[in-house]
């Protein structure tokens, strides 16, 4: 039983991972809202409702994207410092994906990852949704992996 830096890393990532899961669920809800908007039979032509609904994803996913990426970057940094190479190796692909995504965002200098004017494009929306679901799965699995690793790190010494 030893409280090593690795154990600390796992404890911290466990908490943050819960936060990431929350972020991703939030995104999924936002995209779903966008997509199923038209399914709502009432007040189709009532613009306020539509405005309110689109404002929601226009703001939310974008505000959450950069925190999510930086938190994930922090994970990788911590695991590197702690020498947890296996865990780092598991996270590296996603890190590269995040970097790629960040540098290939809409080219007009905006900070938003999801361009409100093109996010309704079915291809992009589908892609975003799929991306969110995949990430949710990844974070959930890694959550349990971190839990296991934390316990393992705590009891192994």
């Amino acid at each position, binding site marked *: 039983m030893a409280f090593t830096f690795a154990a600390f890393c796992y404890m911290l990532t466990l908490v943050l991972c819960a936060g990431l899961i929350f972020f991703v669920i939030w995104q999924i809800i936002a995209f779903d809202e*966008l*997509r199923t*908007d*038209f399914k709502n*039979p009432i007040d*189709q*032509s*009532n*613009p*306020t409702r*539509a*405005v309110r*609904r*689109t404002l929601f994803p226009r703001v939310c996913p974008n505000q959450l994207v950069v925190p999510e990426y930086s938190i994930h970057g922090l994970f990788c940094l911590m695991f590197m410092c702690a020498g947890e190479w296996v865990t780092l190796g598991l996270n590296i692909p996603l890190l590269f994906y995040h970097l790629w995504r960040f540098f290939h965002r*809409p*080219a*007009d*200098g*905006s900070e*938003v990852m999801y361009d*409100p*004017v093109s996010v*309704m*494009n*079915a*291809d992009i*929306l589908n892609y975003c949704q799929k991306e969110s679901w995949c990430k949710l799965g990844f974070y959930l699995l890694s959550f349990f992996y971190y839990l296991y690793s934390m316990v393992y790190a705590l009891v192994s010494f």
Partner: protein
Amino acid sequence: MSAPGFTNLDSSSAGYNQNQTPNGGAAPPCQNGPLPTHPSMYPPAGYYGVPPPQQSYPSIPNHATSAPSKASITSSAHSHNYYQNNHQQQQQQTQLPQHQVAPSPYSAPPPSQPYATLTSLAPPPSNAQFNQQAFQQQQTLYTTSGPYYAGAPVYPDVSYPSAPASSQYAPHTSSNTSTPGVMSTQMGAPLHQFSALPPASTAAQPGYGTGHQTTATMNGKGSTAAVQNNIHQHYDQSHQAPHNYNSYSGVTQSSGGADGDRPPSGTPSASVHSSPSHHQGLRYGYVANSGASSASATTSGAAAAPSSSSTDDDEEEEEEDEDEEAGGDTSSSSTGSASPVPNNYDSLEGGSYPDSMPPSNNMTNQAPPFGSYGYHGMQSAYQHGQAPRPDASPSHSVYSQPGYQQYSQPFPNLSQLSAALGGLSGVPELEMEALRPVNLLQERNLLPSRPLEAPEPNLSPDLKKVNCCPQTFRCTLTSIPQTQALLNKARLPLGLLLHPFRDLQQLPVITSNTIVRCRSCRTYINPFVTFLDQRRWKCNLCYRVNDVPDEFMYNPVTRSYGEPHKRPEVQNSTVEFIASSDYMLRPPQPAVYLFVLDVSHNAVEAGYLKYFCESLLENLDKLPGDGRTKVGFLTFDNTVHFYNLQEGLSQPQMLVVSDIDDVFIPSHDSLMVNLKESKELVKELLTSLPAMFSQSRETHSALGPALQAAFKLMSPTGGRVTLFQTQLPTLGAGKLQSREDPNQRSSTKGAQHLGPATDFYKKLALDCSGQQIGVDLFLLSSQYADLSSLACVSKYSAGSVFYYPSFHHTHNPVQLEKFQRDLDRYLTRKVGFEAVMRIRCTKGLSIHTFHGNFFVRSTDLLSLANVNPDSAFAVQMSIEDSLADSSLACFQAALLYTSSKGKRRIRVHTLCLPVVSQLSDVYAGADVQAITCLLANMAIDRSISSSLSDARDALVNAVVDFVSAYKSSVSNLQQSGVVVPAAMRLFPLYILALLKQKALRTGTSTRLDERIFAMCEFKTQPLPQLMRMLHPDLYRLDNMSDQGALHLNDTVVPQPHLLHLSAERLTRDGAFLMDCGNVFYLWISKCCSETFIRDVLGCSSYASIPPNMSHIPELQTPLSERVRAFLDWLQDNRAFSSPIHIVKDDTSAKATLFQHLVEDRSESASSYHEFLQHIQQQMSK
């Protein structure tokens, strides 16, 4: 009106009616001639068309109800009629005699016809026959022509408040129905003239003064009231019938064509007004009604009529009107007997109308014309609607039971039947022709002689007729594939091309308290819904069964109750509703216009300001709007200038805000002023504005801050911002750097910087969109101004972009002229504010991507801060679920907007297309123009998101994929070469033309801004315009013949053949016109005939033609007149009038013309033949 008189009349009329039967059969020319045309014309006639005969009459003052002593009134009414006809037909007078010609035997005494019929009722049957035939003839004429005129005025009064729209109907329908061949072509002009009608309608109103005015007005209100009192309806009917009669006489006069006919007709009509004749008039009217609704006099109706009328006689005098209505109803129900489903009907009818059986059998001969009526079944059904009425005659109840079943049967049948027909008899020849394999490497002459029309969907004729006009709503595949797999196999894109706010010649406008919509998917009721029975309808998009509200049961067109299938909503695929407050978030905004003008040195140099001010001064009164219209002006260079135009000031005050980092509004209520109140100040400002800045030395442009100020100024109301910019913005927020490298202009690799440099303009546009502000951009720049960034401000706020490269008021007169023309159109065109558009489609289909200028709010909802009549949209669709369980796919676009008059309106377009399961059917229904336009939109998206070369490759691959898919799946021919179905034979040519457009070409020097502008145009131009830009129409003018010429009014518009866009077609001795959509080129060859040069251009010889000639002189020679008629006709078909350039063989302007010859090899692009060979190579890979 005495009861005995009635009985007599009834008997006589019965006899008359029955006589009618043999005649109907015996005189096919009379009936059949006009009749088949009626169906075909039916859709335009739409809701004024079919039901109107009944409904329209009422507007004509009631002679019949008036006592004999009212001769004077009647005559006045006649004159009303006459005038009405006159109004529409001033020019058609020449036409009208042709009506007479049709009924040849009877035509000789046309004016006397009505009277003959009237007097002859009691007398011998032989007479009656004659009359009846004459009458039928009239009927076809009148139901078609007469009543509509009369009817049209009523609509505006009663339930279709937009007078102009409804007024336009009348001529249209009349023209269509009466003599289709000739009239339809001639009608173009009368439509325009017809605005004179509304006054006529008011003139007709006094006729009501005979005592029915009250009822009439009651009706008027009744149409809007939820439930109509029965009695009122009956009154209506009674009025209608007499009116019919009167209208006949009135029409005969006019159809007589000579003014001289009027007085004689007046006198007979007076004599007619004895009560018996009056009643006959009623009878006529009613028969006419039936005839109109069924497009023929139905014998069964005639047979049914006596019975109903005899029962009527038992009732009190006052209820006579009801009886009439009942009679009318029976007749209309009998019209239902002649249906496209004769078997069904015979059996059903047999049960319902035993005594009318034999005639109804006869009537089956007439089934084809009836088939045109989509909802004929309902007519009989409607009878049932009458039955429950307490005062309905017992005979009705007899019919009602079987009648009931009819609804449930004909309706589902209709869709099934249409599908079946579509599959079986649905123009197989056409389909075969469309599928004929064409080897493009062998067949060289592919172009049709006239510009390509949209292919007709393979629907049953009745659905085809009510379907949405292809100019408004077009689908790339007129046969929708059943599954996504089939669509993928076809290798063609599925999408819609929409032009929703197009200027329409005729548009039914509907006011009602409840707008009937599907409860689950909110689809507006449309012609393609199914009526399960009288009280329920089934949505054609989500298949939910909905109730028909009570109000919908009342039909304002026929003024009858229980005919929901005849409501205009169900008769027209394009309708406009006046929306109630449910559709408003706030009170409808007034029309608000803000003009943001660049006054920097560059702008002064270009000199646009003077011309803008002149144009605005000229059009100040024509700006769309009402008494609440507000205007404002804002100028900017390195500071932002506001203008206080508050009413009461002696002259406009200029307020300068120099703090461009944080722009504020100096005064809140006096900058946007009411145009009416401050008109003098506005005029003064506009006159002084050009001089005010003539000495400006300021070269910087603070566009961003000016736009921010405009946004702040407009955000309380919303409205339209018109922005004039002449250079790259260099100060404040949103400043831009030049990104264009002139050396890269002709790079073959592609173009850089197609996307915006900053998101400032996009964000601003989204804010504007949220506040219902649309920004229209006029860019008049000689330098690079980064249109790709600037255009964002219009793109996402649903504005439009105009670009005038190298604009200079003296050095570039061509651009100046174009600018002035565009401004004239821009300032006066319709505008819709705070609009949203939703596109719904049949369950299983879903929207993939939108193209155009808008902000997408949700998967199927577009937010349009402004909507203008010149912008179009494209929509990519995908098939999510199999459509196998439905035979029809429908699309509905609903545009909710605030008109410039402050009315909230909804314009609804519905398109219906068949669903097919065979690949060959998909190919047969492919619309090559729509496919090209959709692909162009997709390619432009691709070039911005990816790269230009990527987009070009994708376009070539689209052709390769399609050709190989066709080769492998459909054609069994093993022949080599590029083989495509005939329907798609122009596809490779169009794609090649697309690749040679400014937007997508490489290798040819193209300025970045011009490229971006071409891209913007592709995204927003309506299809016909886009096709002309893509593949210009080339005509030879010097040897035009009158073969196939159009006859519009009194001018002959020759229709020369289209030529291939190749220099080999430009012979050395010809004169050629190239129509590029936004410009015309008239090419004069070196050896062009002297006569053409002299007669058309007014020059003595080829050498004396001035080099920059840009107009055709108005010479009185026949050749000149024909050329100008043709040019004017081409101009009329587009929104913005295009300038014409006369290009001589030896001038440098030659190059601009030659770049449009897309089939030829250019410096950097292959010829058509090479392109085909390239495709063949790619296929074999």
